[in-house]
């Protein structure tokens, strides 16, 4: 029988994991379960009479609430079940933000919202990655219950800390396979006073990538660099930019007003050879980048969706090669370093082999199958397959936290 258990504190969680260990029953860890569609569907465990033991779900949504927020120390601690939107509202009231710009991926799966634990467990980072770093760069400390049923902590509440191994980073992005997180401490930062976006219409993908690189490589501290080919830009929600016939190349500049004005002017000069540069105001900038961040252009559909992390300058070539073999479309963030790719056609592996071969042969990186039917995700490697040496090391690390493979077994890799 599958149950959903909802611990109200970390000691109850500890008891539940211990019980699961004793009975050798796998547990699915959820925050608000908005991203079940992400990762491999969790597999059951092989029982000792050849039967398949389906596990229980542990719902951490009760472990919620902000327990510490000190704006002038730039630090916030909250329960893993806290809604990300609640945290964002609180920060906004003090003129601060999560600088890594969380992706709200729930919409991709037809849900809303999401928990802090889920956000950190998936290491989800938006367009500001190029300037502010990833979610993992903002995690200062973590508490949680490991697959050994032990309550463990790592890090603390200060930025400068090299005491012991950085297990906070290891648990960030581990999709709940090492520990069920109960509490997370984050570095928060001032929100920019002002935001502008510069756009150039009509560039082809390779030229656009060069324009993005030129801007990021300048000293003008660009905090967003995206390119949407016409097919993707036509799906944008913002009327001013949406264009059926033309691609959009966009650069974001944030900061204090005089600085934003000066940097925009310099960038317009710097980029003039690429085409006419238009400036978009703050309100529209915010709408546009939210759309880019949350994969707005591809959210309505159910088509298989890939997220690729690649060498920025190689991105257009990678997409071009994939497009010559598969029907699909792409858009670019992080100056090319992040590519969202949506398939138009049904393929039994959602194009995994082709896409990964192209990436491996063009500068390396990795591709994650972010959205596909359960039946496809359980047959295909959702995460980029690792080299043998790395896969063995990954399995040993999993083993060190969760030797019986109780927590989210199979969510990342079949053997983990």
């Amino acid at each position: 029988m599958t149950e959903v258990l909802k611990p109200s504190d970390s000691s109850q969680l500890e008891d539940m994991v211990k019980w699961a260990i004793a009975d050798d029953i796998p547990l699915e860890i959820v925050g608000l379960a908005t991203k079940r569609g992400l990762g491999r569907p969790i597999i059951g465990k092989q029982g000792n009479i050849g039967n398949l033991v389906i596990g229980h779900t542990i719902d951490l949504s009760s472990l919620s609430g902000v327990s510490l927020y000190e704006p002038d120390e730039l630090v916030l601690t909250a329960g893993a079940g806290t809604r990300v939107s609640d945290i964002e509202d609180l920060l906004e009231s003090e003129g601060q933000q999560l600088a890594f710009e969380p992706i709200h991926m729930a919409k991709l799966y037809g849900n809303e919202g999401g928990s802090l634990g889920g956000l950190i467990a998936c290491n989800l980072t938006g367009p500001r990655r190029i300037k502010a770093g990833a979610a993992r760069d903002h995690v200062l400390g973590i508490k949680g219950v490991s697959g050994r049923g032990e309550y463990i902590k790592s890090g603390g509440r200060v930025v400068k800390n090299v005491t012991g191994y950085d297990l906070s980073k290891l648990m960030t992005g581990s999709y709940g396979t090492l520990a069920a997180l109960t509490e997370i401490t984050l570095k928060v930062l001032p929100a920019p006073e002002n935001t502008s976006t510069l756009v150039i219409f009509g560039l082809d993908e390779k030229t656009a990538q060069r324009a993005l690189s030129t801007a990021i490589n300048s000293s003008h501290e660009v905090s967003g660099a995206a390119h949407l080919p016409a097919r993707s830009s036509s799906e944008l929600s913002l009327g001013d930019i949406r264009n059926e016939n033309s691609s959009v190349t966009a650069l974001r500049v944030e900061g204090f007003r005089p600085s934003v004005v000066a940097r925009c002017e310099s960038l317009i000069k710097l980029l003039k050879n690429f085409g006419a540069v238009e400036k978009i105001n703050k309100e529209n900038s915010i709408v546009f980048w939210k759309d880019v961040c949350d994969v707005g252009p591809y959210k309505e559909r159910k088509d298989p969706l890939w997220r690729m992390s690649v060498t920025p300058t190689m991105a257009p070539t990678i997409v071009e090669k994939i497009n010559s073999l598969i029907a699909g479309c792409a858009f670019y963030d992080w100056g090319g370093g992040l590519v969202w790719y949506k398939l138009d056609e049904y393929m039994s592996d959602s194009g995994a082999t082709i896409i990964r071969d192209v990436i491996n042969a063009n500068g390396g990186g990795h591709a994650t199958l972010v959205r596909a039917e359960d039946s496809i995700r359980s047959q295909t490697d959702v995460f980029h397959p690792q080299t043998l040496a790395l896969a063995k090391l990954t399995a040993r690390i999993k083993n060190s936290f969760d030797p019986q493979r109780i927590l989210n077994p199979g969510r990342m890799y079949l053997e983990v």
Partner: protein
Amino acid sequence: MKMPEPDKAVIERREEIISSLMKFVPSESIISEKKELSVYESDGLTAYRQVPMIVVLPETVEQISQVLSYCYNNNVKIVPRGAGTSLSGGALPLADGITLGLGKFNKILEIDYDNRCARVQPGVTNLSISEAVKGHGFYYAPDPSSQIACTIGGNVAENSGGVHCLKYGLTTNNILGLQMVLPDGEIVSLGGKHMDSEGYDLLGLMTGSEGLLGIITEVTVRILSRPTSANALMIGFDSSEQAGKCVANIIADGIIPGGMEMMDGPAIEAAEAFVKVGYPLNVGALLLVELDGPFEEVNFLIDRVKEIANSQGAVSLRVSRNEEEREQFWAGRKAAFPAIGRLTPDYYCVDGTIPRSKLPEVLARMSELSKTYGLKVANVFHAGDGNLHPLIMYDANNPGELERAENFGSDILKLCVEVGGVLTGEHGVGVEKRDLMGVMFSEIDLNQQQRVKCAFDPHQILNPGKVFPTLHRCAELGRVHIHKGKMPFPDIPRF
């Protein structure tokens, strides 16, 4: 502080080990003469010394892999070493171990400006990366004060920071990829030129792992475009408390300066006496605030910071008028360690971090401790992020004084943890803070960290005796303790 008992059987096999190593590395890469070995007897924490059994200076990754695999199969310990500037004894040799020096890995392999990264060997010095990309207007952001000497491999192993890490992050935030050799000789690559590495964040785990998990053989670092302008303010306050409030208000105003450093009275005096750059001598605390970025932004923020400083009761305030003056402001801070060194035969640099708001409390208690121990202390801090560097002055020639200085240091670090901070902000645990780990972590926490160590190094041949106060056997740590029983919580909500 005790190191693990050397294994006599291994020491007796020394000659045999040397001749085996000759099969993988050229003989000129092996150092075995007593006199030459003593060059390696300590790192930046000179209070501890130990001549290594053998030093090996390999030239290729293949050689490292072969040496490791030999040591793994023959139970020989290895201590990795970069430039040996560690202040926590991370590179302290073992009497029954090989010190593996990465000095010959000193090449910059590739600079890729379009993708804003450089691929370098681990023995390349921190500063030489910035030097190499300077012509194109780029730099490598983390800037430890030891940057002329320390290596990027050592920086990764210690997760080093510098004056600019408040705004630009530590080593861990500035690397994209690594190649490493595991203790069994296996070569593994992590990350690359892409921005998110796949799978578990082993890049994050390796950074700050103090040479206990693998030998770093290549690093891909992020390089940044240099800000077009920078300007600094030098602000004097009557008390550290006021200076601390000023720091808090600058940050609360939404400003993240490129650098923000504080010095207390004794440190200001020592620095001024040494470099004579015009530090005010009648103040209780000096704050250096550097703003960098586009010219317009820097000008705008200088005014805002001035306003904040004045409203906090600044007793002196100067803004650098040119590049030369800006560098002068910093010269005193950068020379603080040697400046203290002139005043005292020996000094001991402590490295703890506290929540910034606790600064007045910590300073008050530190001066009480100073009286109790009868030892003077001067303070420099990375004020923006609460990282303290108290410099305890002592004379090792006076019997018992080194021990007193160390106990004073331990008390300061315990105080840091007590107020919500940590044992080490950037210098690492090494041997120095090893026995204090229990102040911050429970046995369960430490066991989990050691299990991670076992996942990389099941025979514990890499840098044993560092970081962990007690060594457990991996097999013992691996056991699962099963609490057999019925579901113990009938009243938990279910759905």
